[in-house]
C-alpha cells in the first residue's frame, strides 16, 4: 500500500494553488457530478422525491428534502458507477434512517447488479460525524446495513471511499470507510472513530484537548493516515486530483487483501507499540517498518503486570463472563476476549464475549469495551472459525454466538491515533464474512450493546436475540452523554423516547424497530439457573435454524410487522430506489 501525492508540475507553488478547484467547497451534489463522467450524472431519489426524515419533525427540526444524501448513477471512465455523496452542511452529514437507507439501498442494488454479472462501481464520498443522534438507534442499525453491503460488494468490485473534509469521517461511518477497498483523503480530512470533542467529554481534557487543532490533525488528519497506510492515496483539495485518484482506484481493481483483513500485520504492529511513548511520529516510524522506539526498561510485560496489580480487582462478574461460562464453560482464551464452545441441539457452537481486562496495556480499554486489541482479537478469533470450517458444507458450518455486553468503544487519544476505527472494522468484517460464508451468526444481548462496540461485536449477526432484563440496552450513545450533547435533561430525553422510538433506551422500544428476532423474558441475567440457561439455549437453537433457512444478508431485519411499521421509511427508500435504478 503506497501513499503518494498525485501531483502536476507547475512553475511556482502559487500557480499550482491558483489552478486548483476546491472539492471541499463543493456541495454533495456538485461533488457527485464532478466524480462522474461529464454529462453522465443522473440523480436518484432526489429532493423532489421528498424522502425526508420521519423523525426530525417530531423533534422540531427542519428536514431537508433529500435528507442530506445524494445518490447519482452515471459512468466512471465509461464504466457504470454509483456515487453516494453525503451533504455535510445538513446536520453535519449525520446518518439518519433515510440518508443511511439511501446508501445501504444503493449498495444493495449495486451488489445485485454485480452478482448478475453487470458490475456497478460504488464510490462513497464520506463527510459525516456518524449516527444522527435524533434518530439514534435507526442510524446505528442502518450503518450496520451499510457495512454489511460494503463487505458483500467488495467481493465483486473495488469499493472506493473519499474523505475530503472539512467534517471528516467519524463514528460508525469511519468503520464503513475502513471496510472500503481503496480510501482517498486530503490533508484537510480527518478519519477516526470518536471525534475529538467526544473523547474530551468522555475521557477528560487531559486525555485530549479537542481545541488543539494541530495535535488533532497530526493524529487523525489525512497526511498521517496516508503516511501510516491507513488510507491509500493522499490528494490535494483539488477536484481534478480527486477525480483522477477515484478513477485510478476503480481501475486498479480489488486489492488481494483489504486493510480490515490484515489481522496479523496490524496485531504485529500493535504488539510493538509502547502505549506510554506512542505519538504520531513514533507511529509513523513503526508503521513504516522502522521497528519499535522503546524507552529503556519499559518492557511491556512488566507494565502489564504492574497495571494488573494496580487495577482494583473487581469481584463482580460481568454479564458477558457469566453467560460465556453458563453456555460454554470456562473460557479457553484470556481477557479481553473470552471464548469457548458449547453444545446446542447436538452441534457445537462457538461463543465469544468481550470481558474486562485489568492488565490491558491500553488503559482506556480495560473495561468491557471494544478497544484496539479487542477489535483485532475478535476479528482473529472469528476468522479462525471461518478458516477451520473452510471445507465444511455450508449447512454444517459452526454457529457463532456473540455474547454482547459492551459498554462502548474505547475513548482515548492512543486509540484514535492507532486506528481504532480499523480495529473495529476488522471485527465487523470478520463477523460479516462469517455470515456470508454460511455460518449462522447470532448475537445474544446480555448487557449493554452500545454504539460502535455493538457494530463491532454483534450487529453483523444473521439474528439478534436479547434478554429482557435490567441492564440490557441498545443505543448509539449513553443516556447521560446523549442528554449532554442534545442539551436535554435526562427526564426530557426519556420522555422523548416515548414518542420517538429510535431515541428510547428500553429493550421493549428497541424491539418495536423490528431488529430483534426475540426478546427473552423471565431470564435471570445475573445468576442464571439451569432453567434460564435451557431457555436461552432453546432460543439460540431456534435462531440458528432460522438463520440457516434464510438468506445470508440482513434483509430479514426489514420483514417483521414491527419493521413494516417503524422502519417504513427504510423500506420505502429501497422500494422507490429499485424503481428508479437504471437497468
Amino acid at each position, binding site marked *: 500500500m503506497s501513499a503518494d501525492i498525485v501531483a502536476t508540475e507547475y512553475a511556482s507553488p502559487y500557480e499550482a494553488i491558483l489552478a486548483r478547484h476546491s472539492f471541499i467547497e463543493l456541495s454533495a451534489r456538485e461533488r457527485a457530478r464532478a466524480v462522474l463522467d461529464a454529462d453522465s450524472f443522473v440523480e436518484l431519489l432526489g429532493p423532489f422525491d421528498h424522502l425526508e426524515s420521519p423523525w426530525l419533525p417530531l423533534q422540531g*427540526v*427542519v428536514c431537508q428534502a433529500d435528507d442530506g444524501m445524494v445518490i447519482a448513477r452515471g459512468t466512471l471512465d465509461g464504466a457504470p458507477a454509483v456515487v453516494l455523496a453525503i451533504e455535510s452542511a*445538513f*446536520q453535519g452529514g449525520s446518518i439518519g434512517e433515510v440518508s443511511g437507507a439511501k446508501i445501504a439501498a444503493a449498495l444493495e442494488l449495486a451488489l445485485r447488479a454485480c452478482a448478475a454479472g453487470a458490475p456497478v462501481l460504488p464510490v462513497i464520498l464520506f463527510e459525516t460525524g456518524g449516527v444522527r443522534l435524533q434518530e439514534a438507534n435507526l442510524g446505528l442499525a442502518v450503518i450496520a446495513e451499510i457495512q454489511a453491503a460494503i463487505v458483500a460488494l467488495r467481493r465483486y468490485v473495488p469499493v472506493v471511499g473519499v474523505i475530503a473534509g472539512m467534517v471528516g469521517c467519524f463514528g460508525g461511518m469511519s468503520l464503513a470507510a475502513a471496510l472500503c477497498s481503496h480510501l482517498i483523503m486530503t490533508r484537510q480530512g480527518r478519519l477516526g472513530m470518536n471525534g475529538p470533542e467526544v473523547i474530551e467529554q468522555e475521557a477528560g481534557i487531559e486525555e485530549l484537548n479537542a481545541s488543539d487543532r494541530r495535535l488533532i490533525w497530526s493524529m487523525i488528519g489525512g497526511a498521517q493516515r496516508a503516511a501510516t497506510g491507513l488510507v491509500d492515496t493522499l490528494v490535494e483539495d483539488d477536484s481534478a486530483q480527486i477525480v483522477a485518484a477515484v478513477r485510478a482506484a476503480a481501475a486498479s481493481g480489488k486489492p488481494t487483501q483489504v486493510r480490515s483483513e490484515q489481522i496479523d500485520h496490524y496485531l504485529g504492529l500493535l504488539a510493538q507499540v509502547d502505549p506510554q511513548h506512542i505519538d504520531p511520529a513514533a507511529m509513523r516510524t513503526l508503521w513504516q517498518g522502522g521497528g519499535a522506539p522503546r524507552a529503556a526498561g519499559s518492557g511491556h510485560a512488566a507494565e502489564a503486570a504492574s497495571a494488573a496489580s494496580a487495577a482494583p480487582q473487581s469481584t463482580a462478574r460481568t454479564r458477558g463472563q457469566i453467560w460465556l461460562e453458563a453456555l460454554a464453560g470456562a473460557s479457553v482464551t484470556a481477557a479481553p476476549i473470552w471464548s469457548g464452545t458449547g453444545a446446542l441441539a447436538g452441534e457445537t457452537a462457538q461463543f465469544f464475549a468481550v470481558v474486562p481486562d485489568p492488565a490491558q496495556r491500553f488503559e482506556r480499554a480495560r473495561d468491557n469495551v471494544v478497544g484496539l486489541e479487542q477489535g483485532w482479537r475478535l476479528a482473529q478469533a472469528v476468522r479462525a472459525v471461518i478458516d477451520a470450517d473452510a471445507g465444511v458444507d455450508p449447512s454444517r458450518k459452526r454457529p457463532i454466538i456473540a455474547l454482547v455486553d459492551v459498554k462502548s468503544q474505547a475513548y482515548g487519544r492512543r486509540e484514535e491515533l492507532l486506528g481504532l476505527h480499523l480495529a473495529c472494522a476488522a471485527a465487523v468484517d470478520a463477523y460479516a464474512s462469517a455470515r456470508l460464508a454460511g455460518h449462522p451468526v447470532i448475537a445474544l444481548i446480555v448487557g449493554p450493546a452500545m454504539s460502535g462496540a455493538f457494530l463491532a461485536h454483534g450487529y453483523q449477526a444473521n439474528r439478534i436475540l436479547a434478554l429482557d432484563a435490567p441492564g440490557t440496552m441498545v443505543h448509539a450513545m449513553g443516556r447521560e452523554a446523549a442528554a449532554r450533547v442534545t442539551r436535554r435533561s435526562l427526564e426530557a430525553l426519556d420522555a422523548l423516547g416515548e414518542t420517538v422510538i429510535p431515541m428510547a433506551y428500553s429493550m421493549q422500544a428497541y424491539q418495536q424497530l423490528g431488529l430483534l428476532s426475540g426478546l427473552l423474558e423471565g431470564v435471570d441475567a445475573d445468576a442464571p439457573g439451569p432453567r434460564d440457561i435451557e431457555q436461552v439455549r432453546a432460543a439460540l437453537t431456534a435462531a440458528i435454524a432460522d438463520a440457516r433457512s434464510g438468506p445470508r444478508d440482513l434483509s430479514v431485519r426489514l420483514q417483521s410487522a414491527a419493521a413494516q411499521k417503524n422502519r417504513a421509511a427504510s423500506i420505502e427508500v429501497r422500494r422507490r430506489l429499485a424503481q428508479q435504478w437504471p437497468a
Partner: protein
Amino acid sequence: MEQLNFSYPASRPARQRAHVGVVGSGDLEVLLAPLAGTQSEVVVRTSVDGYGQIWKSVLDRFFTRYDGAARIEINDFGATPGVVALRLAEAVEVSES
C-alpha cells in the same frame, strides 16, 4: 419549528423545476416546481419561530417580480431575509434557464 403557508396570483406556468440551497446554518433550501393554474403556493418550514410577518414581506416583494405558477417549498435553517431573497432569485434563474 414553524410552518407557514402563502399563496400569490400567477400569470403563466413556471418553466421547469429547480432545487437550490441546503438546510445548513444560516441557509435554506428552495424547491420550485411548476403548478397548474393561476396561483403560486408557498410552504415555509423554518427553524426560527415567530417571523411570519418578515416571511410575508420577503415573499410579497419576490412576487412583485415573479409571475410563474409554482409550488415553492422552503426549508429554512435560520437564513436572513437577504439570503432568502438571493436563494429565491437563484431558484427562479435555474427554473427559467
